[in-house]
């Protein structure tokens, strides 16, 4: 950000004339860094100079005059020259940053003049951290910029949400623009970022029209520094440790509890432990005998009848799966400089994070290269170019035994503590081969590569003393996504001398390559002037065109001739699947913005965009989106007599605007016969099939999001305390959803149309305090910032007249959880007999008989049964709304201080209120209450109902109790097991030191910083009171591995959250 300001100032013309004395000096910031481009002016004259790249200035003045030193973003300072000829000035950063400039659509704006809801963070937010990608680094930093990281995987890069639920029809997330052009933030070099700005209301986003319906995120990269060439090298090295679940690892305990759960829930004595090992009462008895006699564990014997291995082991599979820690390193080099006419910046980055898996490590790496430059070709014309090349590579291993399954799920299903990893002859055991053994074999996984090349060429032409500017740019972007999936059989042995394989049904290679070519061009003119000192006017108008063409090729072929083959030429089988894919869309629009300010007191802004999109039928193709916002700086009024020491600034803001949501799949209004491959063999092959096209929508038009926003900004106590708050209502109307449910006889989902409305109400606020005092004669600067945001969405219109709970309904609060009220456990058979019947809706045992220790649900509707009634709002049976899974009161806390070149900071983020009902597959929570052979969470021990332990948290042991969300006693949502997953997380903490200049300048270094920082090192949630701290991180309750099973639930089968400690340094020359 700073650099942009420098540039603006550098261009500003100044006048200089002779004086008698020459005063020289250096302007620095509070940390001693030179401030190039600061203005040094003789007070009361228009004589002034700018500081050079080293912050140095030289000005001629007369004795007795006063120098005013000012710099955007800093408090200006006035110094009497007296007889001094050398004056060194240290400027304090402006507490309020009132002079701060904020990036908005197609330009920048002074923060004081903002009328819409816009927020911004600068590069500081990302300094000294180690985040696998930029998206992860932005979590929690801006209020109501919601990034839902579902687990700790380095490639996690969910879409950005601004201000809560957007649309239940077409959906939609925030538009992300990198230097004005759509792009993938997860492929950016975090060190290149100058600022990230979010446009939250319709008024600020309107200039982007249809794509900005749900807010805009503007990411701006750094510009070349002015003056001499700077070289900055920074590097950090981190140590990352996974969250490891606490499961029972004792083989006998596991098997004993397995058989008990199995008998109760599966209704007979088990014959196998799932499918891996044989099981019998005799085997369990023998295991018990060994445990009780103190015979050593981990013995492998051979069954005399079948000749198969028999295991008496105790294996901690997660210990074998994960390394104790992994590392990551990040190297970044930036070279930047400029002359009178040209400026350049070249940056490069290498990021490398070896995976956390001990075998088949999921290595992650990223390479970024950016070259940015500008040249002043003519006095009025500047050309700029910005190119970016980035690649990301990640290896996602999986287990092939059951097709392609994420490791966490397959350990739960197939890999059990009583089984060791290896047989005596070194082959894998049946338990190991499905999961960790597959990793040890090390051949099954997806190699994922993403690359982006982007080039923007632009110009700025200035006319009439820079009052009128014309800007234009053209961007070409190419994205490549390559996924290569390999599945080969893995050898194992269940009896000596016999080698078997799992995964024989697959043995194939899949290449899935997708390319997107994206073009964008903008041309716009901007006029800016002030009339009669009081009337400031800025007018912007322009044209924008973008198109995107997507192509995909997918080929799978089986019959790899050897397991290490990586090329399709070596796949010789007859199971061949091919696929293509194509999508092209284009949008074009004209946009304009008018800003008017009267005496800096009354501010008004009008935005409008006329937008066209290829995704709509021709009669609906174009739409017009206007918006208006206004601000009143009360503190600038003449009647305002409050001392600036108390209230230094007060502004009221309001905005209103309406935007169309163009976030819709292409071609939806055209009849399409899609072609796919059948899964049924006909005449010896899997033929292509096509079928009746989807029902055409019942007319289609734009969804509209209309936002009303009110804001209040004030600063108090000499700018030390600052508050920014916004409250808003966003109505998403005409959402594209299904029509009134038709009788099933129709044979298709009812045609979609613009049928539903949604209202989201919310607010966000940030409060910051910044001050300093002296400690040991040196200033200690400190700051605190607290942000809080909330939103809640309600369905206002929806085609569900019967208010069936299986669908949205009018009045529904998004995220609400319907469930039963848990009354306790049945005490005895009489208790069961006297209670309302819980069958046939639910069952606790295969025989449908309820026993003591089973869950007793409260009879809410006083009929004879516990059930879901007709599953309608008016007849929900014995259920009611018991919670809500949407996060509420999302907060962030920033603490920072610096003293004598030492700086410390901490950043906490969290959620104030959120409920979670563990899904049926949440093994970390349910253990053997789901599958009998699942791992047992340690916290279950002693926490399960028995006649002697009637007050336990969990019911009597029983497999399958949590295996179905409508028919099983734990699977159904209910009050007792509803979890409070509010949390607080210490996202980042830092301690650093800037080595004083006098120590390093003699070795030719201008700055040197060392630091140590921690990422995700602490968190707390009420959930931990139930499951114990350390067993699972609250960040791991998201849906299962989305690479392997996109869209699937099963909370917790996902990548562990990592705690990192980072050591870094940064050298500037």
């Amino acid at each position, binding site marked *: 950000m700073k650099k942009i300001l420098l540039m603006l100032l550098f261009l500003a013309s100044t006048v200089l004339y002779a004086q008698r004395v020459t005063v020289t000096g250096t302007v620095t910031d509070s940390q001693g860094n030179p401030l190039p481009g600061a203005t040094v002016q003789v007070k009361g004259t228009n004589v002034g100079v700018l500081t050079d790249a080293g912050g140095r200035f030289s000005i001629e003045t007369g004795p007795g005059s006063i120098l005013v030193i000012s710099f955007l973003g800093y408090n200006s300072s006035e110094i009497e020259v007296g007889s001094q000829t050398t004056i060194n000035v240290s400027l304090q950063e402006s507490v309020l940053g009132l002079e701060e400039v904020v990036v908005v659509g197609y330009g920048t704006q002074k923060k004081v003049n903002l009328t819409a809801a816009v927020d911004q963070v600068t590069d500081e937010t990302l300094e000294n951290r180690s985040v696998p990608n930029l998206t992860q680094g932005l979590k929690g930093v801006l209020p109501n910029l919601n990034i839902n990281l579902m687990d700790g995987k380095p490639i996690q890069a969910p879409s950005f949400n601004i201000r809560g639920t957007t649309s239940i029809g077409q959906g939609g997330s925030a538009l992300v623009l990198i230097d004005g052009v759509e792009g993938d933030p997860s492929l950016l070099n975090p060190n290149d970022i100058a600022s990230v700005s979010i446009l939250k209301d319709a008024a600020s986003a309107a200039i982007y029209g249809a794509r900005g319906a749900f807010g805009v995120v503007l990411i701006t990269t750094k510009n070349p520094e002015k003056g001499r060439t700077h070289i900055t090298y920074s590097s950090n090295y981190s140590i990352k440790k996974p969250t490891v679940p606490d499961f029972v690892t004792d083989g006998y305990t596991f098997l004993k509890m397995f058989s008990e759960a199995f008998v109760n829930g*599966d*209704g*007979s*004595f*088990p*014959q*196998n432990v799932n499918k891996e090992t044989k*099981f019998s*009462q005799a085997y369990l*008895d023998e295991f018990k005998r060994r445990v009780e006699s103190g015979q050593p564990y981990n013995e492998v014997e051979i069954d005399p009848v079948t*000749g198969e291995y028999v295991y008496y082991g105790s294996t901690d599979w997660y210990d074998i799966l994960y390394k104790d820690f992994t590392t990551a390193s990040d190297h970044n080099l930036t070279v930047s400089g400029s002359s009178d006419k040209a400026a350049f910046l070249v940056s490069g980055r290498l990021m490398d994070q070896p995976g956390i898996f001990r075998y088949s490590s999921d290595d992650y790496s990223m390479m970024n290269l950016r070259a940015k430059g500008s040249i002043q070709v003519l006095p009025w014309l500047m050309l700029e170019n910005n190119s970016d090349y980035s690649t990301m590579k990640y290896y996602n291993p999986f287990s092939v035994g059951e097709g392609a399954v994420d490791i966490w799920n397959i350990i739960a299903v197939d890999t059990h503590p009583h089984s060791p990893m290896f047989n005596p002859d070194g082959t894998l055991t049946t338990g190991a081969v499905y999961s960790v053994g597959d990793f040890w074999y090390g051949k099954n996984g997806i190699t994922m590569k993403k690359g982006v090349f982007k080039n923007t060429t632009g110009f700025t*032409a200035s*006319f009439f003393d820079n009052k009128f500017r*014309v800007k*234009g740019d053209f961007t070409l972007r190419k994205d490549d996504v390559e996924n290569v999936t390999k599945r080969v059989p893995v050898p194992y042995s*269940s*009896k000596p001398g016999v080698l078997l394989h799992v995964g024989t049904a*697959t043995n194939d290679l899949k290449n899935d390559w997708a390319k997107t070519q994206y073009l964008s*061009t903008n041309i716009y003119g901007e006029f800016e002037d002030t009339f009669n000192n009081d009337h400031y006017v800025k007018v912007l108008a322009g*044209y924008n065109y973008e*198109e995107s063409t997507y192509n995909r090729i997918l080929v799978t072929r089986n019959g790899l001739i050897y397991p290490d083959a990586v090329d399709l030429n070596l796949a010789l089988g*007859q*199971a061949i699947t091919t696929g*293509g894919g194509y999508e*092209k*869309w284009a*949008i*074009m629009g004209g946009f304009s913005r008018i800003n008017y300010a009267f005496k800096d007191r009354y501010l008004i802004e009008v935005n409008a965009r006329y937008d*066209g999109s*290829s995704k709509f039928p021709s009669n609906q*193709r174009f739409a017009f989106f206007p918006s208006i916002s206004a601000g009143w700086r009360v503190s600038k009024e003449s009647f305002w007599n409050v001392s600036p020491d108390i209230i230094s600034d007060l502004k009221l803001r309001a905005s209103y605007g309406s935007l169309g949501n163009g976030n819709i799949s*292409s*071609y939806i209004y*055209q009849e*399409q*016969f*899609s072609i796919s491959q059948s899964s*049924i*063999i*006909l*005449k010896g092959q*899997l033929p*292509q099939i*096509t*079928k*009746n*096209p989807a029902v055409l929508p019942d007319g289609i038009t734009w969804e509209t999001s209309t936002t009303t926003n009110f804001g209040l900004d004030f600063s108090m106590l000499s700018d030390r305390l600052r508050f920014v708050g916004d409250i808003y209502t966003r109505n998403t109307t005409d959402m594209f959803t299904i029509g009134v449910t038709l*009788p*099933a*006889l*129709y*044979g298709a989902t*009812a045609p979609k149309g613009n049928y539903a409305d949604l209202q989201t109400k919310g607010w966000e606020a940030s409060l910051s305090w910044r001050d300093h005092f002296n400690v040991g004669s040196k200033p200690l600067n400190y700051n605190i910032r607290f942000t809080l945001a909330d939103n809640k969405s309600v369905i206002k219109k929806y085609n569900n007249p019967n208010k*069936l709970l299986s669908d949205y309904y009018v009045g529904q609060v998004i995220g609400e959880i319907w469930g039963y009220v848990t009354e306790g456990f049945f005490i005895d058979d009489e208790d069961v007999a006297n209670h309302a019947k819980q*069958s*046939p809706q639910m069952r606790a045992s*295969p*025989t*449908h008989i309820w026993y003591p220790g089973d869950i007793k649900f409260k009879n809410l509707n006083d009929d004879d049964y516990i059930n879901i009634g007709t*599953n309608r709002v008016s007849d929900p049976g014995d259920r009611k709304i018991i919670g809500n899974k949407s996060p509420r009161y999302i907060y962030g806390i920033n603490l920072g201080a610096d003293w004598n070149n030492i700086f410390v900071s901490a950043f906490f983020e969290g959620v104030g209120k959120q409920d979670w009902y563990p899904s049926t597959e949440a093994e970390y929570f349910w253990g053997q209450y789901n599958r009998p052979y699942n791992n047992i969470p340690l916290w279950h021990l002693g926490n399960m109902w028995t006649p002697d332990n009637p007050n336990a948290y969990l019911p009597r042991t029983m497999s399958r109790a949590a295996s179905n969300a409508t028919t099983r006693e734990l699977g159904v949502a209910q009050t007792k097991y509803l979890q409070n997953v509010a949390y607080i997380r210490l996202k980042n903490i830092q301690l650093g030191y800037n080595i004083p200049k006098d120590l390093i300048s003699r070795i030719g270094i201008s700055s040197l910083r060392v630091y140590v920082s921690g990422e995700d090192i602490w968190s707390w949630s009420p959930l931990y009171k139930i499951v114990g701290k350390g067993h699972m991180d609250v960040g791991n309750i998201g849906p299962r591995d989305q690479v392997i099973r996109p869209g699937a639930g099963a909370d917790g089968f996902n990548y562990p959250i990592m705690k990192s400690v980072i050591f870094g340094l940064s050298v500037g020359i």
Partner: protein
Amino acid sequence: MIMKKQYLWFALLAILFVSCEKELDQTPVSTASKTAVFGSKDGLEMYTNSFYSILPGRTTKLDAMSDYLAVRTVPTFIHENAFAATLSSGWTWTDLRNLNYFIVNCVDPKISATDRKHYIGIAKFFRAYFYFEKVKRFGDVPWVNKPLDVADTLILYGGRDSRTLVMDSVLADINYACENILTTTDQSRSTITKYVAYALKSRICLFEGTFRKYHTELNLQATADTWLTNAATAAKTVMDEGGFSVYTTGGPDKSYRALFTSDSPVASEIMLSAISDITLKVLNDANWYWTSGTYGDKASFIRTFINTYLNIDGTPFTNNPDWPTMLFKDEVKGRDMRLQQTIRMGDYKRIVGGTPIPAPPVFSYTFTGYQPIKWTLDDMYYDSERLNTNSISVFRFAEVLLNYAEAKAELGTLTDADWAATVGKLRQRAGITGGLDTKPVEADPYLIENYFPEITDPVILEVRRERGIELCLEGFRFADILRWKRGELMNMEWNGFYVPELVTPMDLNEDGILDVAFYQGTKPSPAVEGVTYVDVSETIDGKTNPQLLKNGTYGELTWMNNMVRKWEDKMYYYPIPATDLITNPNLEQNPGWE
């Protein structure tokens, strides 16, 4: 000069706008258009390929609800007071829309009328199949022969059509298919041919004929014979022209099971099959389903049904007065050789890592001792997941023979020659030596007493016996029970083999290794190596034990008879799912389910 430049910019802007606007017209290129699909034979073929998912596919679990299987839990449908309209399902019509869309749109004159009729014939075959399944499940259903529009409210919100209207339409569809499908043979046995259509016709007509005959409450008895005659003639067409035969090449002890365990369909007898193929990675889960203690239903035959397998000489097993107390190892000897190809017995072996090992019934799986092997492969490699490579028959010649025999028997026109060509052929393949050439004249009292008290005709009785045995586990049984109006069979006791006494271990396959023992209370100690001990106490840990002996300490095994299964007449039809009645109350609920 500067001003001129500005005009230039505006001109450029205007050009950009005009040149880009045409880009807003985009058409999909990775999907096909209607003309492409309906204007070429390849397109029609590609579309009709989508119909095959209407068939049951590679499943072997269709008989999980039947009278002859004891399963892990009582199916909710027959569990007393457990089923209701809120739990019902099956009122889905998406396949019909796909079929009707094709039939209505297959009009492109670029394709010859003969070819169009062929493909429409395929579509009508599937529409007949689709409606047949709907009628079996719900009785009256609405007949719809076009893709409905939202504006078709009279149909969408209308009532159901009568059974006669719907079934006459089904008959018209299947007749059209028989007449117009051009393919007469497909060696891969995976696609619909003219003779598969005739086979379906015989299946549908037999169902409808017997249903109307025995469900006298419909008052359609008068029309039954027409349907039965249609069934017989359709079956006869397949027998005379289809080129199929009963497969006997593997000998009487192997041929039968080879039909169910072969990778490629046994082409002489299998008419249509759901193919599995390892090279195409298309597999089924038969072993997983039939051997896993957790995945499947743990289905085993009940003793009452096993008793219907004849002696090898063709006489009823139950003629031997000692049968009630015969031990498993003895009772399975000297029987119809389909028994040893249907359940674990005798020297049945499984393969572990290439080595055959004796495999008696295992009591961590079976509840009765009669453990099915009809669909499973012997190698235990296939047990653990979806790995089976055997193809699953959907239509086979033996069914057509049985359809013929039953239709003729019901019509009273079955001759000795008919008998020899149908049931006789099947019994001969199973190694049975007696009663192959002449139709039976003696009614087996066991069948009358246990299965069909109202049938006295020995031919009908024997055809029904034959159908039960020959087609067991192939998904016919529940529909047979419905059309014979013998729902009460679903109440039959779930019984297992005879256990003479507690504690003493039994050797089930006479390999010298003791296999299973039953006890009450405390498990015998020391335990005999290799023996599975099954607790048959009244209660275990205070909970009712579903696995008991009939006379307490001895007698037949029984399973889960504490869970009452109760057949009621309303169960001849499923209820219309409650939510579908909410969206269209004019459907009206089936009687008894309101």
